[in-house]
Every structure is written in C-alpha cells, then in structure tokens.
C-alpha cells in the first residue's frame, strides 16, 4: 500500500565513513501510514554504500567524515501484513517499471549525535530534493544510524492505493522509520 513513500524515506539513511572504499551495510525500514479503515505498517530492507572522506566533517563514528552515501531499497524487500497489501504497494510503486528507491546524500551537517542529511530521493522515477534528520551514535562496527521522516506521496506522483471504489483509501502521507549499522 503506502509503502512506496516509505522506501523513499528509508533511503534517507545517511552514511558516515572515513576510508576511501565504500562500505556496504543494511538498514531496516518501517513504513507506516493511515487509511480510511486503519493505520498500517510495512517493512523493507535497504543497502547503504558509504565512501569515507579523508578530511571531511566529523560525525559520530566517522572522525574524518563521509565523502558520499547512497541508500538503495529494492521494492522486492517490501513486506506488508498480507499479500494483498504488498500487491497494492507494488502497483502503486509501479514495481514493474521501477525496481528500487534510491537516496543519494549530497551534504550533511552535524550537531552532536544529530545529523541532517540532504540529497535527492528517487521514487517511481521521480527525483526530489530531501533532507532527512538522523541520530548517529558510534558503534564498534561504525555507527548506528536511526531516524524518522515523513513523505507526501504526491511529491513523487504516487497515487495512494484505493480499493472498494475508494471506500478504503490510503492516506496521503507516510512515516518512515529506519535503523541500522553503517560500517566504516
């Protein structure tokens, strides 16, 4: 169902790094939204690719900063409470044309453990600038990145799924929560 937007938010996951090679990590996403019947939750899993900087803006777990970060969430990882919902989600996300949601970080700011990652989000072929707030805490493997953000489906030209002649219709906004470890 509304999962599409979720993915986009999930992408907002930022990466921090210090070494030149991009580190691969996974991040779990929880996408939730409303409908005319009840609230709902779907999940997805995304992959991050982070290229550390050698002399960038220091961030928790990444003293030399991050050169680039990219989050990719394959649509096939979206899982809703039942197959019917998952199908509606895929239809809304045009999964037959677009296979993933992508967030590419352009820049970031750091204030303690709070990081604001700015970049672009591409969903269903539509690319829009987004800024995602993150909480980043150092961990043995790199950094734990977590946060929540909200997306308007209309921003990405996604029509909220509707069935039963519109009696059951997904709400226009979704909330994406994400958490994962980003390795150095």
């Amino acid at each position, binding site marked *: 169902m509304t999962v599409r937007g979720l993915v986009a938010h999930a992408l907002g996951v930022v990466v921090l790094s210090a070494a030149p090679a991009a580190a691969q990590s996974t991040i779990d996403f929880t996408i939730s939204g409303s409908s005319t019947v*009840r*609230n709902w939750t779907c999940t997805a899993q995304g992959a991050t690719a982070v290229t550390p900087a050698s002399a960038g803006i220091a961030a928790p777990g990444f003293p030399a900063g991050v050169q680039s970060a990219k989050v990719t969430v394959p649509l096939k990882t979206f899982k809703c409470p*039942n197959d019917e919902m998952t199908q509606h989600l895929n239809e809304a996300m045009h999964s037959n044309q677009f296979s993933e949601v992508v967030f590419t970080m352009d820049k970031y700011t750091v204030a303690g453990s709070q990081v604001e990652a700015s970049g672009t989000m591409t969903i269903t072929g539509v690319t829009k600038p987004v800024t995602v707030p993150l909480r980043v805490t150092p961990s043995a493997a790199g950094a734990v990145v977590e946060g929540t953000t909200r997306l308007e489906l209309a921003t990405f030209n996604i029509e909220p799924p509707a069935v039963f002649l519109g009696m059951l219709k997904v709400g226009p906004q979704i909330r994406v929560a994400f958490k994962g470890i980003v390795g150095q």
Partner: protein
Amino acid sequence: MPTTPNDPHALESTRSRRQFFKLLAGSPLFALAYPDLPATWRRDLDAIAEHSWHAAGSRMGTCEICGQHFALTPQPSHAQAGQQAASAGPPNEALDAHFSGQLIEEAAEAINVWDFERVAHANTLPSHWNYIHLGVDDLETRVANREGFQRIGLKPRRLGPDAKLDTAVTLFGRRWDTPLFLCPVAALEAYHTEGEVGTARAAKARGILQIQSHQSSQSYEQIAEARGEPHWFQLYANADWDITRKTLEKVKANGCPVLVWTVDLLAGSNRELVRRSQGREGYDRPLCQSCHNHQKGYQRPMHRDVSGPPGPRPPFDWDYVKRLRDTTQMKIVLKGIVTREEAELCVKYGVDAVFVSNHGGRAENSLRGSIDSLPDVVAGVNGKIPVLIDSGVRRGADIFKALALGADAVGIGRPYVWGLGAFGQEGVDRVIGLMLDEFRMVMRQTRTATIDQIGPQSVLPGQQPIMMRHNAQGFGL
C-alpha cells in the same frame, strides 16, 4: 466588621434589604435597571423574584404589582464565569488539549493515555471505532467505571527512607515485572495491521502479561511467537461443548498455561452503538465482507479447525466449571465476577483466579464500577485465590487503588487499543510506559516500595467522584 448568624443588627439589616429588594422587584422599571445592578444585588433579587426556567433557558421575572412578565438578564454560573474569564485571556492550547485530547503525531508526544484516543479515533473506520468505544445502553457503566476510581483518594506519606521500587508480582508461580497486564480485546487488526502481534511485542518488551482474545485477528501461534512464550487465552465458550473442547485442546497444544473464561456476556449485552453503526446492511457492505464472517469460508483464527458434528450442549452453570476443570490442566480464571456470592462459588468450584470485570461497561448496565465490586469479590475469595481486575483503569493511580483494595493484577483494554490504533506497537509500548511511570510515581508518593506494601491503609475510599475530564460522547472516559 464580621457578623454572626445571631447578630441582631445583621439580621435587621438583611431584613431591610430584602424588603427594599422586594419593592424593587415589584417595580416596572425593574427589568431596565436589573442588568446594571451589582452582582450581589442581582443575586438577592433573583431569590426574591418569582421566576421560572423556560425551555430556552431564559429566566422570567414577574412584577408583583402589575403582573407583567419580563426577562432577567441571565447570570453566569460559576463554571460559565470561569469559562468566560478563560476565553478572555490569551489562547492556551496546552490547557485546551489537556482536557479535550490532542492529535499528536508521534507516540513520544503523548502525556497520558487519552492523547492516543483522539488519534486512534481519527485513524479508524467509524464502525470499528464504535465497537471499541461502546458501552451498553448509553455508556453509563463506562462512566461508573471511571467514577469508581475517581472517588478513591490516596494517602500520601511525605517522609521516609528512599527505597528502590519493586513492582514485580507472581501469578501461578510466574513472575511478572509489574501488576499491569493487557486484557483480551477482539480483532485488533481492525485498529492497526500489526494487531495482536504488535501488541505482543510491546508487552514482551515491557515484561507484562497479555491475554489473547478468543476473537483475535491473529492466531495463538503467531502471538506466542512474537512474545517468545505461550500466553494466556480468553475463551468464549461455545454452546456446543465439542467446539469448546477442541478450542481448549488447540491452545493447550501450543503451551497455553491459563484459560480465562469470560462469563459476563452469557446473557447477552445491549450494544446499541454497534447496531446503529452497522445499520441495516451490517456486514453485507462490500468493505466489510473482505474481513468479516460474511466472506465465504472466512473464520477468525481461533475458530478454525474446531467444528465437527454437533456435540452436547451443557448449560453454562457451575457444573460447567467442573467440566472445564476435568477437561484441561490449564489454570482456569473466571472473568466477569462482580459479587461476593459468586466469588465464593469460584473458590468452591476450584477456579484458580477471579477476574473482576464488567467488560469495560460492555456487559450489563449495572451502573456499578468494577472497582466498586472489587472489595466484595476480595472478601468472597478471602485470600484463597488471586483476584484480577479491569474496566476503567486509565491512570497509574488506578492500578495502585485496585491493588490497595485487594487486586493482585490490574488490566487495561481500551488504552492500549488507542495506542495501537494511533501508532501500532510503538503506541502500545508508550501507553504501557506512561501508566507504569504514573504508577511508580504514586508508589513513591505513598512510600510503598513493593506491591505487598500497598494496602487499604494507602487509600481513602468513599469520596464523591471528581471528574475533570469531560466525557462528551464517551471520549475522555
């Protein structure tokens, strides 16, 4: 100079003023002058003037000389005066939101359990909302449940040693982190897709007991998997014993340790709001058919694979308890006991625990709060078996009060469903957290460090209920 009731000068003065007012009330100019008189004069005049309330609420005076009727300028009541004073001041969104509920966007924003009520309502299909919201008849027993708690006072103790709080309780040999537990509520997927499983994850994280409803949206296995252990199961006994027996076998096979038999709906309940909500079409509406029993072959999980040839149909009497006892090794709890007599019978017939409940005001319209029934049941049980309670529990203080009056564990229903409907698992977790935070605060305020230390000496029963939260249309109860 202060006067006393027997002061002859004061009495004479009052008499003179009344005579003057009586004269004034008899004047045709009274109506014109009345609005500009001092408030204290108007009050005395009101007492003297012959007046009556009309349908529109206007008050009429009668000229004693000319017989002419005239309208008196309404005086605001104390409450109205307070409202007028408040509205004259600067906007106070926090105050407005506190008593009317607010549409929070994150579970973490909630200050108390009612903050979830409006959000859940906004996000739930009206007919589903009406199911959780209803009370029998006009919701009076829902009100009684809240009033019951609101007439019990706390006895704080100001000074004493700092002690580490221990809220743990033990039921049937199993230790729980707190006496708070989640009551069985039907069809939780109606409020959020996470349903019982999301609720189970929250309960597990908080270390509290959860009782699955016989009418659950999700299966015993799914919920147990989410909890990581078997849980208690609530039974609606079927008239066909074989169906009930198979249900018992089904949950027992999955390790269910405790069976909670709900006995408060055996005689039916007058749920007008649901009937009004369903209308003439009922579940025949296309939107309803995808989930409800009208869909061909659809059955809720706990009703699957238990049918068969018709079996015996024993009456739901005390021998039925014996029949259950002889059929299963699970502990048996009777839910819905509200009298001393039946509490005594529970002990007599080998019931393992009594659950004081009026089904959240959804059984009979007794107009008696469940907390008001608790002392009777506790007396009937006489310490021989545990006593659980639900219905109207909304605050940590309510948990405390129920424990003080003899309950061993205290359940919530609607509050966690509000949390679920608003934010899924996260909302349930927050509801539990808020109530336990409040509960621990009350323990500190009364300097009770363990559950055993909470007793009748900790409360003051019998006061008039103080209800600040408005309950228009049942919200805020």
